[in-house]
């Protein structure tokens, strides 16, 4: 079984590849949190594409694939791209997005040009250089691991020691400058760290998709927490998972580029986060909406029982669905569900297709009716709205007024007797 062979990590080559992939993806995920929070995702993309000409130039000049030399070349052109984007943005009328577009395509174009020239140049050493395009985790050799690993560890240490300062310049640059932090130097360091993270990551992920490793883990992690430290740890973990997976794919199918696979995995993780994260996730929000809808239906039914009770001067008459629908049109299925729920909750009691208030139900129905009428009165008095304009508004507001707000409204309106339509405002009897 290939699976067990891989995950037992007995083969030292597999160990190198796995450790290398994890380190690379973790580094970019951690550093990417700052890129994400500073809203510099596109710059990350520009840098990633711009390291390619640097890698190629280093190879052309030295004729060998020494990882340290390639790293230096990549760092220089990557850094140059950021400098150019900033220069164009400040010195010309072009906006940042255009500047990024220009720099990215020019650098990447030159990179591809050089790469093609190298491939046709007949240098036997060049095989494998093209794996920098889309990444090839399986090609990580021990000496790569040492050099890229060293850089990665320096990055993580840098983030650890300057965590406080990097956070502050990401959140409030002006304040950081005002308290005398060397903001320019810190920004330069953070930029350098970002470039280095990109450079170390390209062997596993490749230049084309590297920006995804910078941004996606951070964006996904942001959904799970409000704490930056935890966000970084979550992002790092997500990065590690995608890194291991990338290494595994590379092991199964050595001719397959790993970058796209790593990015697929991290994207899946991100999609799951967007969908299922508590509070911010799509499903959590949907659940909340359904809950609100149920609350509105239930409170409207109780209000309806109360209004009918007022009319008949008997709040505890049992009523059928037809008699309820005579007074207020509702979707029948919603009404049925609501009646069943309210019976379960003890606000109504049911006998043979007829429902009637319990004592608790009456109190609740009365409160909704009261809030509705109070709000109508508030709108006519304080917003000078005409009495025939206030009903629809009160229909929604009656469901969200808290007891504290109710007390405040009562105080301002001085415990009024009737609403703008001369209906009596019902108060609790004590």
């Amino acid at each position: 079984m290939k699976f067990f062979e891989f995950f037992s990590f007995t083969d030292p080559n597999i160990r190198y590849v796995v450790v290398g992939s994890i380190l690379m993806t973790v580094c970019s995920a951690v550093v990417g949190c700052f890129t994400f929070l500073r809203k510099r995702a596109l710059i990350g993309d520009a840098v990633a594409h711009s390291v390619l000409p640097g890698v190629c130039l280093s190879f052309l000049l030295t004729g060998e694939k020494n990882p340290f030399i390639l790293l230096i070349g990549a760092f220089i052109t990557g850094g140059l791209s950021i400098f150019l984007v900033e220069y164009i943005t400040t010195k010309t009328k072009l906006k940042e997005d255009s500047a990024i577009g220009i720099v990215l395509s020019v650098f990447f174009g030159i990179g591809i040009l050089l790469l093609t020239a190298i491939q046709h140049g007949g240098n036997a050493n060049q095989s494998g250089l093209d794996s920098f395009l889309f990444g090839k985790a399986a090609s990580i050799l021990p000496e790569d691991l040492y050099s890229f690993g060293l850089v990665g560890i320096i990055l993580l240490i840098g983030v650890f020691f300057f965590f406080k300062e990097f956070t502050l310049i990401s959140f409030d640059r002006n304040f950081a400058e005002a308290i005398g932090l060397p903001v320019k130097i810190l920004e330069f360091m953070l930029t350098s760290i970002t470039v280095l993270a990109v450079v170390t990551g390209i062997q596993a992920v490749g230049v084309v998709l590297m920006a995804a490793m910078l941004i996606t883990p951070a964006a996904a992690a942001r959904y799970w927490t409000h704490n930056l430290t935890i966000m970084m740890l979550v992002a790092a973990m997500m990065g590690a998972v995608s890194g291991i997976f990338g290494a595994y794919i590379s092991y199964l199918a050595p001719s397959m580029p790993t970058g796209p696979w790593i990015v697929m995995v991290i994207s899946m993780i991100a999609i799951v986060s967007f969908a299922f994260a508590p509070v911010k996730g799509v499903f959590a929000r949907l659940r909340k909406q359904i809950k609100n809808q149920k609350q509105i239906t239930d409170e409207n039914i109780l209000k309806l029982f109360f209004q009918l009770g007022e009319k008949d001067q008997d709040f505890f008459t049992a009523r059928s669905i037809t008699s309820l629908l005579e007074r207020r049109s509702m979707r029948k299925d919603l009404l049925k569900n609501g009646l069943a729920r309210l019976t379960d909750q003890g606000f109504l009691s049911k006998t043979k297709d007829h429902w009637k208030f319990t004592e608790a139900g009456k109190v609740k129905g009365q409160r909704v009716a009261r809030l509705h009428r109070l709000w109508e009165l508030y709108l006519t008095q304080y917003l000078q709205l005409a009495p025939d304009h206030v009903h629809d508004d009160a229909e929604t507001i009656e469901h969200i007024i808290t007891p504290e707000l109710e007390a405040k409204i009562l105080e301002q309106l001085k415990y009024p007797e009737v609403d703008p339509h001369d209906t009596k405002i019902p108060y609790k009897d004590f």
Partner: protein
Amino acid sequence: MIIQVPNPILEVHDLTVAYHRKPVLWGVDLTLPAGSLTGIIGPNGAGKSTLIKAIMGLIPLSSGFVKLFGKDLDEVRQKVSYVPQRESVDWDFPASALDVVLMGRYSQIGLFKRPRKADKEVAVECLRKVGLQNFANRQISQLSGGQQQRVFLARALAQDADIYFMDEPFAGVDAATEAAIIEILRNMTTSGKTVVVVHHDLQSAVTYFNWVLLLNMRLVASGPTEKVFTQDLLQETYGGKLTVLAKVGDLLEKQQFPSREDKA
């Protein structure tokens, strides 16, 4: 009418500031007495925020200098606090109210080090002073506008400075919060601190501040509130725009001309 004071806590001399070569403040000369609660008042685009940003060294000066406590800003930064506009930051940042207030302690903590227990206690105490003791661990995006403003104020208090520059601390806050904030500012000045506030409501300015700067691209007046709040000076600040001044500014921008010859 610009009243100069002896032994000023802040001295601004011949300050001109330009954005993209377009001057937004022309030749400002002013001095402020220690312990004052000063309001910077003027219409939109008068350069109110620009003035305090220039004082804080956040934007380059075209000419002039600023002295705080008679010294350059870099020598006295520990004694100076700055509260940026609330909208200048992204409140969706993953941080709690306490995290933000702790940022006020960073210059005392120093590089590399983590906040100590003492810093946390100071931060909690500052949150209490602004009435947010129960919100310490609340994510900042879940705070109301007024509460966010108070978090910024607490962060400034945590700096324990001697002079505070605040950019529109009353923008977007409700009446109750505004009253609470002005109460805190008054307490700060009675205990000897100096507070400078960018403000744009004329009505409340009279009651809030004991020193007022009237600004409209240039300093119209600086002095005790009762002397500065005259019909004429207000008219001069808010009435007719100085069209020639504005036109010259536009021209400098368009022609890419330096506003000072030696700063090309």
